[in-house]
């Protein structure tokens, strides 16, 4: 399982565009470079939207609060979701310069 720790931060890939249609329950991530598109559930969209707005620092806590989860369950769900988003290149891992040298 991916470890969601304090070192890594994630950012939305620069070619990804998120779209939400809450009234019809439709959520998407579009890759505007290669044309891939992904159907998301509302939870995944919520997380990716926070990441897109650079809200990663408080993500675990706010995710737990939003969906009424214990922190450890929130962390596990979040890790699964982030792992999947990384695999599909919807998000990428970002390191600051100092941390990157040590990885």
């Amino acid at each position, binding site marked *: 399982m991916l470890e969601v720790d304090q070192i890594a931060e994630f950012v939305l890939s620069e070619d990804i*565009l998120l779209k939400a*249609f809450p009234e019809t329950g439709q959520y998407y991530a*579009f890759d*505007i470079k290669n*044309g891939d598109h992904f159907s998301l559930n509302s939870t995944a969209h919520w997380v990716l939207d926070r990441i897109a707005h650079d809200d990663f620092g408080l993500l675990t806590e706010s995710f737990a609060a939003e969906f009424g989860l214990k922190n450890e369950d929130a962390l596990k769900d979040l890790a699964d979701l982030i792992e999947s988003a990384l695999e599909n290149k919807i998000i990428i891992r970002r390191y600051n310069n100092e941390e990157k040298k040590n990885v």
Partner: protein
Amino acid sequence: MAEKPTELNFEDEFYFQWHITERCNWSCRHCYQNGNRADDLPVGKLMEICDRMEEAVNKWGKTGTVSLTGGEPFLRKEELHTLMSRLDGSDSFAYYDILTNGSMIGEKESEDLSTHKKLRRVQVSLEGATAESNDAVRGKGSFKVVSNAIRNLRAQNIEVSVMMTITRNNRDEIPALVEILGTMGVQALALERLVPEGNGIGMKDLVLSSHELHDLYEKIYKMAINDSPVRILLYRPIFNLVGCDDPTVGALCSAGNNALTIMPDGTVYPCRRLPIPIGNVLTDGLYKIWYGSDVLWTLRDPKNLKGKCHDCELLTRCRGCRAMAYFTTGDYMTEDPQCWK
């Protein structure tokens, strides 16, 4: 042409209307061009656009169809044939049409066109059943020129469709035009409503009222289903109202759904009649435009429609003409002003 291309279902098709030039040797009174002409792209850039179209329809699991047009596309005859050959060799495109004023289609050109295997049809335009009514719009001598072009094309067994733009001046000539086209061996007649834009922006008084359009569409539908000598194309918004139970009648507006218009410099519009720039195929790419354009997302969502279009039970099959709404009210999501419902 050894094998005729087949028609596609709406769900399977992605349609590009591609204007390879805005230059034209005619000056029709109602033309949607507004006088601002972009430079033509060199053939290498046209090929690049073709590559992007091909990649996109493959990615979306669609089959591409293309209308190659202008301006007058035969003013770029060499490039036009190069593009046709490119499309002929692509598995991603089912067929293409050429939309032309017909002025440059002689016997030799018709022969050349007949060698292209994915050319489905050549569309020319007539604005009435007589030289007098047609030439008043398209220029002196144009009726004869177009008639000759049709003969040349038919002599090579190339399918021909004729488009007529409906106005108050020519609506009564449709039955006579249908008969004439039948004698000429024309396959199809497309009837488009006049949208007062471009050169035609001052022709609002020739746009039919909703009552007049209703009356006309009823007559056209009766003609179409009663052994018309040419196939009258009825897959346009609002036609749904006269043939509600007939699946061949009416069509959902394709803007935002399964079509894009590409202009000579690569600028992309939702529809040629709705000339709102939503990006450039060369600098932005089709994916960014298709997924990112707010205009397209607005068009796609029927809840954004206003007036009687908003609550219409035909939302999945019609939605009116957004260009007509735009050029009569300034808002492309208002109700179609010619709807009589």
